[in-house]
């Protein structure tokens, strides 16, 4: 009888049971934080009676600007979670020396390290990137929307559900302890028998499909929806960089999807793609994951390059230097980024021929990157530079990115890589590239485009203070890691011997993390103060920085239809040229067709979450039912024959008059 009950329970709940709730105080603390955070949000929304508003205005929206805001909110919350992981790691490494074992068990430390990398790349960097692209790109190319609005919303919700699955792992079961890329054989069932790696696989699988769909969406948007007259060579540099990045997404993300699927087959049905023994080949996994992983780095950094191009020319009040060179440099990087993946494992023993080839290809990427740096610097030459905080982030970027880049060129020599691979030298290098290159760029972008989305400017002084804490903290946190690498410290160590002399440097690095934390505090303060003072900070002109590209030609906040009439482009920096020639845009109105809201994106992504959750816990019935749910929802959606609605020219005119009226009111306030 008991046996029968047990079997029924297994069929229903799979491996899930009460024993999967964490009991160790620190792990339970993490779980409690997540549960309380979610409960708090639910309570707050209920208390404010905002559920209907949340559903109608946000969850069902197809407006890329709102989707962009949601991406960024999720990414910033995950930035806090990822930073929490970083603080715990630095704390452990500062005290876990000799006889002291610190505060974390080694398996918990390894879970935190794996979660930190996974969250920062997939749910912070990718989230910020897609968020900013959604906010800016359609406006910049003079479009009203993306090519496939419903798909765009679905991509966001898949991203959201992937994020949710990672965080559920804090409460039920555990997370992968096999590193952020979960190399087999360690990530195989034999060595990682708990559900941790399954959470990793399915969270990335769900979010990854979302990213792939977004990539296709923006590719088509750029290629098909540019304003009339905007030839490719008249596109703003940000649009070029997104085109490069999204091409990489379209080619690289399918590799990730397949690799994760094969690993999932190994773990769920006992296949032997990557197992140790049984004909499995773990080295194949390492090759495949980096064939996605290296382009991924450029997927993240190219849009940041585009952002820097916009910011430097705006704040130097000068045309971008070497536009054509910049375009060629982007495409050189796009092509080369697929020819270097092996430099992540020179130490696998592929032999001198192979290593030398990939080493040289890696060094070659430094050429187009160097060209871009010189072009930015010469954009400043004979300019009139105002050092607002986006410009400060740019200067910080050039500094850290150059140091990190030099370290990168060093490591491209296989014989040097043998000595620094997997060491903290490598960790310092890629943080300089991804934080200094990518995150600084996205922070700059948030300050730069904030008024366009919300209608008021962020507090400048607090923004600069945040920047200086970030920059100094960042250097203090990562320069010691270069030295620690030379001292033999490898990554992901939860304990080391006192005689090695590493502890003081780990403590210094920890101080750096505290400084970064203060910087983050100032960013939060900046946001709060700016919202508080929003009426004084209104951007009445729509063009707060004397901008150059089309997004500044519309009022702030940008109306949901972006343009009353689609602009016609004749020059590169169209809006700047218009301002120079004193051309005043006559207000013209036309009928506008926009997508209707739809809740089906949320439904599809929720089913995807349940597919993943079912696979993690071996509740196969749940996965099957949810998969069917996705298919049925797709069929229902495709039956919808009126996914769009029209606003007539008269309604647009009325809305515009209302807006002008509102602006006058604000003007009175100021």
């Amino acid at each position, binding site marked *: 009888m008991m046996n029968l009950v047990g079997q029924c329970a297994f069929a229903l709940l799979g491996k899930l049971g009460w024993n999967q709730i964490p009991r160790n105080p620190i792990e339970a603390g993490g779980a409690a934080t997540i549960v309380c955070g979610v409960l708090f949000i639910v309570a707050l929304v209920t208390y404010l009676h905002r559920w209907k508003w949340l559903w109608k205005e946000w969850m069902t929206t197809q407006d890329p600007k709102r989707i962009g805001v949601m991406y960024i909110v999720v990414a910033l919350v995950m930035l806090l979670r990822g930073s929490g992981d970083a603080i715990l790691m630095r704390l452990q490494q500062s005290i876990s020396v000799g006889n002291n074992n610190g505060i974390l068990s080694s398996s918990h430390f*390894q879970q935190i390290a794996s979660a930190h990398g996974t969250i920062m790349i997939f749910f912070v960097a990718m989230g910020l990137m897609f968020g900013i692209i959604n906010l800016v790109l359609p406006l910049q190319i003079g479009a009203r929307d993306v090519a496939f609005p419903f798909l765009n919303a679905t991509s966001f919700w898949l991203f959201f559900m992937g994020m949710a699955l990672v965080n559920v792992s804090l409460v039920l079961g555990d997370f992968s302890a096999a590193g952020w890329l979960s*190399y087999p*054989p*360690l990530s195989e069932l*034999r060595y990682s028998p708990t559900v941790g790696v399954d959470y990793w696989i399915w969270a990335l699988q769900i979010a990854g499909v979302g990213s792939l769909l977004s990539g296709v969406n923006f590719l088509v948007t750029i290629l098909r929806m540019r304003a009339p007259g905007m030839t490719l060579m008249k596109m703003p540099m940000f649009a070029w960089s997104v085109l490069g990045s999204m091409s990489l997404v379209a080619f690289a993300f399918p590799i990730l999807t397949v690799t994760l699927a094969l690993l999932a087959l190994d773990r769920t049905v006992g296949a032997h793609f990557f197992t*140790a*023994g*049984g004909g499995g080949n773990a080295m194949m996994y390492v090759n495949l994951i980096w064939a996605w992983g290296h382009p991924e780095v450029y997927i993240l950094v190219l849009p940041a390059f585009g952002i820097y191009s916009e910011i430097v020319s705006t704040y*130097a*009040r*000068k*045309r971008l*230097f070497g536009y054509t060179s910049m375009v060629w440099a982007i495409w050189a990087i796009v092509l080369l980024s697929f020819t270097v993946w092996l430099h992540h*494992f020179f*130490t*696998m*023993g592929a*032999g*001198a021929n192979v*290593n*030398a080839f990939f*080493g*040289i290809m890696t*060094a*070659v990427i430094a*050429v187009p990157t*160097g*060209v871009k740096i*010189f*072009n930015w*610097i*010469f954009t400043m*030459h*004979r*300019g*009139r*530079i105002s*050092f607002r905080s986006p410009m400060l982030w740019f*200067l910080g970027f*050039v*500094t850290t990115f*150059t*140091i990190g880049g*030099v370290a990168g*060129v*060093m490591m*491209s*020599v*296989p*014989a*040097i*890589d*043998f*000595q620094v691979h*997997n060491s903290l030298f490598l960790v310092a290098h890629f943080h300089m590239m991804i934080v200094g290159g990518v995150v600084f760029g996205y922070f700059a972008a948030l300050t730069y485009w904030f008024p366009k989305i919300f209608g008021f400017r962020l507090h400048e002084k607090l923004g600069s203070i945040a920047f200086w804490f970030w920059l100094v903290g960042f250097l203090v946190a990562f320069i010691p890691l270069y030295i620690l690498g*030379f*001292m*033999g410290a490898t990554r992901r160590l939860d304990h080391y011997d006192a005689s*090695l*002399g590493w502890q003081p440097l780990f403590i210094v690095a920890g101080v750096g993390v505290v400084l970064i934390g203060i910087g983050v505090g100032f960013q939060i303060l900046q946001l709060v103060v700016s919202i508080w003072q929003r009426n004084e900070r209104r951007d009445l002109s729509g063009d707060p920085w004397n901008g150059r590209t089309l997004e500044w030609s519309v009022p702030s906040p940008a109306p949901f239809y972006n343009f009353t009439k689609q602009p016609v482009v004749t020059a590169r920096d169209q809006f700047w040229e218009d301002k120079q020639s004193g051309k005043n845009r006559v207000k013209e109105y036309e009928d506008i067709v926009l997508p209707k809201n739809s809740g089906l994106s949320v439904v599809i992504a929720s089913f995807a979450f349940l597919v993943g959750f079912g696979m993690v816990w071996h509740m196969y019935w749940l996965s099957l039912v949810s998969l069917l749910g996705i298919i049925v929802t797709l069929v229902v959606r495709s039956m919808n024959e009126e996914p769009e609605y029209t606003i007539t020219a008269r309604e647009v005119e009325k809305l515009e008059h209302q807006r002008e009226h509102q602006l006058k009111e604000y003007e009175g306030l100021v």
Partner: protein
Amino acid sequence: MKQHRKIILGAFVLCLLLLATTAWYLGRQPVPVLQPAGPIAEKERNLIIFTVLLSVVVVVPVFSLLGYFAWKYRESNTRAAYSPDLDGNTLAETVWWLVPTAIIVVISVVTWRSSYALDPFKPLSSSKPTLHVQVVALDWKWLFIYPAQGIASVNESAIPVNTPVDYELTSDTVMTSFWAPQLAGQMYAMPGMSTQQNLMASRTGSFAGWAANISGAGFAGMTFTVKSMSDSDFNNWVASARHTNRKLTTTQYAQLANPNTPNQIAYYSWVQPQLYNTTVLKYMTPSTTKNMESNT
């Protein structure tokens, strides 16, 4: 203006102080990558220094131009030239396509040559015969088998000074990486694979080694020591290992490979013949794999 000068001077002094403190601290600490004890590690260290010096060619112009332009073309300096429509200069752009290319050509030549010269699989030439050591990564310890001497040790590997050593590497668990930075760079140890790291110690001493790739719960403690010693000391070390009465039979090996067996230095006077090869091969033959999995 004066205030700016003070700030710049202050920052400069602070940087110098930081550099001096760091140098002082490092002078008193082991920095294995930069303190080679053998020809391979020494050449790798020299490459590091060479590339750092070469990078100065790029870093100095980038930082000085960045600082200079940022200073000179600041908004408040209305005396500086302002050319809003200046958007390119073929000569300048050619220069910064070509100069980085030239640097990369130099790096490429260095990469090509050093990849062959410092190939970990390449035997080192010496008048002395090469010592063969077979290394098996276990959970979470390093087993060193000396086939010619018929002994084995755990977490400690003695080698005679100025003698080429050929470490053959495999793993009887997940993949990890074998790294003794004062002697040579690292090489992966993988199940079902045999890789190599040839190296030589040019002075006597104890050199720390690490597992450099995450391999599960005991990963942080998976350290070893390479002890470089005179030929006679090495012979004594072998002899003393032979005098211990522990034999590395198949059963003993299974015991050692168990993750629960404590990770400590041990010596074995006898080793099951072909232990290394069977360890590599067992991951490549289907039948044994099945047995292996049913055991876990």
